[in-house]
């Protein structure tokens, strides 16, 4: 276990301003264990009284070595690890990885699987935004919103449990389609949920949007404009709140998103309040997409026919020799993916989630790298917090919506 060691002046010299080295400003450690940092994020704040001069994020406290670990597992088994990257968007991670593998394999996914993928991705987006609104409001001392958001989230988690058996880490979306077809009660459960959720979103808005305390704590705080966002490679709700209507689902559609009719919510303020409004409106648009997907859900298979990639149904194994051999080969050696490199970008609730996959022709991924939105978005923390109070830092971290599993991988 590494010992603690004092940071010397030399280490900090190029990070903090000269006033800190003379002692004029204070260095405060907002440590890895903190109720409002949404995970294990360490911030080194340089304070002049209560005003933040500089804010240096220190990440890596949740580094899991996913990329190296995935190199030692076959493609199907490595997908289990992708759930746990951005743990509020597990199906989105699965989707990014599956799309990358399917692109390398040139595999077609049946239409029913595509529609269900879109539905689940949007439900996961709702799930993530609900947790976001709950925890951000909790940080700004609106505690009841947290309990209401968790109540709605339980309904979504019940749907996930119904289709896959697990509440959060489902690994339901796999290269080639889905794991298995949805049960009979799935459509009914989603319809019931869709009837309930719009009124609930209005309830959160009525609690927060016109609330003078909330507005005081969030307006004109943590401002960034669209130009800076693009310079720093930020996308997602942060960029949309700064004025640019950019969404991966419209720019480079995947999994059939071009067939759905939805708007891209945009605000121009660039502050915490704008990001809040953007995410609330995104929740409403997600509901719209799920409604459309539910209406157009076709019948059909949910897995690709390619037996070299997708395992045969269990019922076939008893009667067909080829099915047994395919099953055996897939489980022991795994399918081989042709040589090549792809980069697939999807829209996660935080921004652009990309999967860079390089294969050398074998059954295990040679190099898999996830371009995670939280890692990029966290770089603008110094810009956002400069000149604000310490109490605003909490609100700002919440508004960027970082997930440390996403940042540290």
């Amino acid at each position: 276990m590494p010992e603690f060691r004092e940071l010397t002046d030399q280490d900090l010299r190029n990070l903090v301003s000269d006033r800190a080295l003379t002692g004029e400003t204070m260095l405060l450690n907002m440590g890895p264990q903190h109720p409002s940092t949404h995970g294990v994020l360490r911030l080194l704040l340089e304070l002049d009284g209560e005003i933040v001069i500089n804010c240096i994020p220190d990440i890596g406290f949740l580094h899991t070595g996913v990329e190296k670990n995935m190199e030692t597992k076959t493609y199907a088994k490595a997908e289990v690890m992708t759930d746990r990257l951005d743990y509020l968007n597990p199906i989105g991670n699965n989707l990014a990885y599956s799309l990358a593998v399917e692109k390398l394999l040139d595999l077609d996914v049946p239409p029913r699987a595509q529609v269900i993928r879109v539905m689940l991705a949007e439900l996961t987006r709702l799930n993530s935004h609900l947790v976001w609104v709950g925890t951000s409001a909790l940080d700004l001392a609106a505690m009841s919103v947290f309990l209401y958001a968790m109540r709605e989230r339980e309904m979504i988690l019940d749907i996930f449990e119904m289709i896959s058996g697990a509440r959060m880490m489902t690994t339901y979306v796999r290269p080639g389609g889905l794991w298995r077809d949805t049960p009979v009660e799935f459509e009914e459960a989603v319809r019931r949920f869709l009837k309930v959720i719009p009124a609930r979103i209005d309830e959160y808005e009525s609690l927060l949007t016109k609330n003078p305390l909330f507005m005081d704590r969030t307006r004109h705080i943590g401002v960034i404009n669209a130009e800076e966002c693009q310079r720093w490679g930020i996308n997602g709700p942060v960029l949309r709140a700064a004025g640019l209507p950019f969404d991966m689902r419209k720019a480079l559609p995947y999994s059939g998103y071009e067939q759905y009719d939805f708007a891209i919510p945009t605000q121009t303020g660039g502050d915490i309040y704008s990001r809040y409004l953007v995410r609330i409106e995104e929740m409403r648009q997600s509901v719209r997409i799920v409604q459309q997907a539910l209406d157009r859900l076709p019948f059909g298979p949910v897995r690709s026919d390619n037996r070299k990639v997708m395992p045969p149904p269990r019922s076939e194994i008893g009667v067909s020799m080829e099915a047994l051999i395919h099953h055996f080969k897939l489980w022991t050696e795994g399918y081989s993916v042709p040589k090549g490199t792809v980069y697939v970008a999807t829209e996660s609730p935080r921004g652009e989630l990309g999967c860079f996959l390089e294969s050398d022709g074998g059954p295990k991924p040679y190099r898999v790298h996830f371009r995670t939105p939280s890692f990029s978005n966290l770089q603008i923390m110094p810009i956002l917090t400069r000149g604000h109070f310490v109490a605003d830092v909490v609100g700002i971290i919440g508004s960027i919506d970082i997930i440390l599993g996403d940042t540290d991988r």
Partner: protein
Amino acid sequence: MGLKGQKTGSLGIVTTKLEEVVNWSRTNSMWPMLFGLACCAIEMMSAQASNYDLSRFGMELMRASPRQSDLMIVAGRVSRKMAPVVRQLYDQMPDPKWVIAMGDCAACGGVFNNYAIVQGVDEIVPVDVYVAGCPPRPEALIHGIITLHERVKQEKLKSW
């Protein structure tokens, strides 16, 4: 506890053993420390929320400060960089303290068997209850907490 209220009339006197009172007070208001690291933290938050209420077990609030908490629920994977921090937080908690290792990663390293994750938080702190699952359902966490309560109720006072 023997309620001999009827015998003593309305004096309201209860006779019991000292250990039972001490253990009863410890279990019924055990405050967990907010130590959610990764995905299990979200399930811990769900357990705290209204659907699977943890307040009915006395854990109304989760204290952020280790100096004011009794129970450390290590929820999530502990990386090598975080390990000294976990130990320091554990050392900062006053006695009596208990540790629940929630989830597979805290119990044994979970899915991640590699250079970056501590294989089980019991390499760093002594664990009382392990709750399995990836992530464990809120009901599983509650089962773990009740198991811990039953263990605490069996504790004997060894020194004054």
